[in-house]
């Protein structure tokens, strides 16, 4: 019997005693040790604590207790989620060496479910970027082609799953930071409904948009992880009381009679190879019994612009606390104001500074209504347009990203080109809706292409049913 490689397989084997959690974790650590030098997915590998935790899970199994649905499953965590006593850097010099005194809610929930954290993964600094090139600690490579980016900002977590280091990982998604790298790395990535997963302990980028979600090698594994981390948290005031129904049951449900929406006024700009796979996804779902319907979401196209006012505005405030006074990086200077300037000039990278400046400007007296205020109105418009579309369709389909993974450095000097990577993913964040990227074959140069499934708020079950149907269709084509 071969050792299981999926999260569900590992957990089942560990719970039944046919495989030890120690072995599962050891395997993961071995792979990381052997190959992460080439990929650069991890910023910290927590080998020692992972081995201890795995041993504890095995002891629990031996004593007859159930360590939970993710028993012994090695998992990687994007390095912007607080882990007690384990460095949490946000890939920024600003937080280099900072040790959180507490665990994020998702971390506690993963531990309760029996998962074992094997390390913290690379990201664009403070989750700002679409290629993981903005990390202060090095570039992560796409496991499908190491000359290319893994996408971002959760590039490390996407690459860790794509490279087979771990079956599952966590990322955070503010404008596409889970789905876009999932698409570029050929793995499943889910951004849940806003409020479904607690943000407590997630280092904030843009609080009204940030949401934690899983990466996985398959849809069913993503469902198990999402169920483990979701649920109301009184520690997060924006947490919703009842997230969504059971996801495991949704996976095999199928799409018979389901209405899958095609957005007729979707912004153009996707490469032909991506468009081809996207069209193939409609065909596959139609073959599986879904009805393909046309819908309009006119405000979709304004999402990017609204996002680049709202997200930087919130970021400018969220990142103001990194002032060198209480923790993190500090550059000595003759007085307090000079210390602030020196610390922030040295501690933040270029993209972070760009967004802080954008956001500060957008919130300034005299500009607030024209920028932040208007962007919030666009946001409402997008939500309204989606609501109308969902009276005709159960889910919507778009490409995840306009292109396959691009060469490292190709867009580094062109922020606008980089921002366009998130054209299709941003509107779901603005509306607070769930969306997931499912790998659907390959495009140019044999690189993965992802298809995005969008659903209304707390529509995760339907979304997973569609994602799983796409996955089955791909399996059948292989």
């Amino acid at each position, binding site marked *: 019997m071969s050792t299981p490689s999926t999260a569900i397989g590992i957990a089942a084997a560990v719970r039944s005693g046919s495989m030890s959690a120690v072995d599962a974790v050891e395997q993961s650590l071995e792979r990381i040790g052997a190959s992460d030098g080439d990929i650069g997915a991890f910023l910290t590998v927590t080998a020692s604590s992972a081995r201890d935790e795995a041993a504890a899970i095995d002891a629990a199994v031996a004593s007859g207790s159930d360590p939970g649905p993710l028993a012994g499953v090695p998992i990687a965590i994007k390095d912007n989620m607080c882990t007690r006593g384990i460095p949490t850097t946000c890939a920024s010099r600003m937080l280099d060496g900072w040790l959180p005194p507490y665990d994020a809610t998702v971390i506690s929930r993963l531990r309760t479910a029996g998962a074992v954290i094997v390390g913290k993964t690379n990201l664009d600094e403070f989750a700002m970027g679409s290629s993981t090139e903005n990390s202060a600690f090095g570039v992560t490579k796409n496991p499908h082609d190491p000359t290319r980016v893994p996408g971002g900002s959760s590039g490390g977590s996407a690459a860790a799953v794509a490279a087979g280091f771990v079956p599952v990982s966590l990322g955070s998604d503010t404008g596409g930071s889970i789905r876009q790298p999932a698409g570029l790395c050929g793995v499943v990535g889910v951004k849940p409904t806003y409020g479904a997963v607690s943000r407590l302990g997630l280092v904030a980028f843009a609080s009204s948009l940030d949401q934690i979600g899983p990466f996985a090698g398959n849809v069913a594994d993503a469902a198990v992880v999402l169920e483990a981390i979701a649920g109301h948290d009184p520690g997060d005031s924006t947490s919703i009381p009842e997230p969504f129904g059971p996801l495991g049951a949704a996976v095999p449900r199928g799409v018979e009679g389901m209405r899958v929406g095609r957005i007729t006024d979707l912004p153009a700009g996707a490469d032909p190879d991506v468009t081809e796979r996207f069209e193939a996804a409609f065909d596959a779902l139609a073959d599986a019994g879904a009805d393909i319907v046309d819908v309009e979401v006119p405000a979709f196209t304004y999402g990017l612009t609204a996002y680049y006012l709202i997200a930087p*505005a919130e970021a400018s405030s969220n990142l*103001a*606390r990194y002032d060198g006074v209480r923790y993190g990086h500090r550059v000595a200077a003759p007085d307090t104001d000079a210390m*602030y300037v020196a610390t922030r000039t040295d501690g933040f990278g270029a993209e972070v500074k760009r967004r802080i400046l954008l956001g500060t400007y957008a*919130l300034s007296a005299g500009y607030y209504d024209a920028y932040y205020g208007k962007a919030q109105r666009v946001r409402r418009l997008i939500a309204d347009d989606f609501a109308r579309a969902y009276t005709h369709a159960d889910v919507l389909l778009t490409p995840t990203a306009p292109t396959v993974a691009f060469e490292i450095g190709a867009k580094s000097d062109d922020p606008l080109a980089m921002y366009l990577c998130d054209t299709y993913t941003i509107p779901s964040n603005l509306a607070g809706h769930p969306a997931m990227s499912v790998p659907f074959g390959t495009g140019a140069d044999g690189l993965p292409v992802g298809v995005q499934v969008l659903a209304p708020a707390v529509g995760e079950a339907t979304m997973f049913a569609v994602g799983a149907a796409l996955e089955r269709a791909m399996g059948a084509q292989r």
Partner: protein
Amino acid sequence: MTERWTYEGFEMVVGLEVHVELDTATKLFSGSANRFGDDPNVHIDPVTLGLPGALPVLNARAVELGARIGLALGCTVQACVFARKNYFYPDMPKAYQISQYDKPLNIDGRLALSDGTVIGVERAHLEEDTGKSTHLGGSGRIHGSEGSLIDFNRAGVPLVEIVSRPDIVSPDQAREYVSELRAILVAIGASDARMEEGSMRVDANVSVRRPGEPLGTRCEIKNVNSVRSLGRAIDAEARRQVALITAGESVVQQTRHWDEGDGRTHALRSKEDADDYRYFPDPDLVPFVPSAEWIDEVRSALPPLPAKRRAALAVLCGVAADTEAVMTVVERGQDAYVAEVATHGADAARALVHVKEAFAELGARPRVPASDLAALVAMESSGAVTATQAKTLLGDLIDAGGGDPAALAAQRGFEAMDDGELVALVDAAIAAEPDAWQKYCAGEDKAMGALVGHVMKASRGQADGKAVSALLVSRRS
């Protein structure tokens, strides 16, 4: 009617911003204790320190106390939004303060002064306090200091900022507004409102103008640490502004610091280069939307307010009521006790004076049973003991935590003097103080003091002063 302040043809316009710390067990957005006076940095947590990933959770009790304040001031309590006020300062952990901006909890209230003048209350909103900086060396300010120590115990403590309309026209009114506000806050249990300890802080916006002119340029005065200083600071600032204008100069909009030592205000910073706070709704919090039922609940739980209680006490004590004693006793929350003493048949006005004078340190509910004080007041009213003796006996009652005043009087040998003894003492006094007696007979009423004093001394305080005066009056006529 309080008199309007005028100086060289100018009048003043004052609005007050009062910050009060709410009397909650924990902070506005975290579970750390809201407590004053402990070692530095013991009441802290990730939220208080603004650690990465920390999130605020609104304290329900703070909202309730905030609404209580609003309702006591006749405000409309409304759906409200928390906003971030962004600025850098070392004792501001997140580099933004969570406050309320365009949608505060309470709007449109009023506070009535004793003469019936109504001062408008524009808003009363919730916000969090900052930490406390101590700047070492230099002037005690951050600029030029050698270093700074920060105590975050206070960071995140719930505050309500009560903003008056610019309806105040004199330092006296400002003082009365603050005193009355303080009395209300204490009465409703929202805050201990101690200016000296900083749990109540008052900033004054002061401008001057000639009557009928539009509002002048205002300055904001900070660092006022007592009600008395408030009056002085407003007066000094208004005079400074008048002097500037009459000298042909103009007032610059500024924040100014009151210096208790030299009795002047000093410029802190110009509003021209003031920070742009970039307020926006805090995305970590959701709007608080009070239901009509909740507002009714909070309103119905409001205790009677000081003005109403003062009126009730004054009615109880009758025409003899001492206004100042009424104020003081209500402020200390001892009016219910006075009323209880009166239910035992004692003279309420007399009981009021005893409570005011004897129970200053004893808090709201004196330890002496109301029935015992009632018995003492009855003895005094009947002339069984003198006012001076009654005071002494009340001291004994307080020391013993109660007792039978008649028995205590007997122990001390306090017995009412018979009329014969008293007449003899008065005769002796007239004989001993012939000058005073002559002056008194010539119509100089003040001279009576020496004669009464003589009697009191000779009787070692046992004589009833009132009875002595009455005898002297009848002798003169």
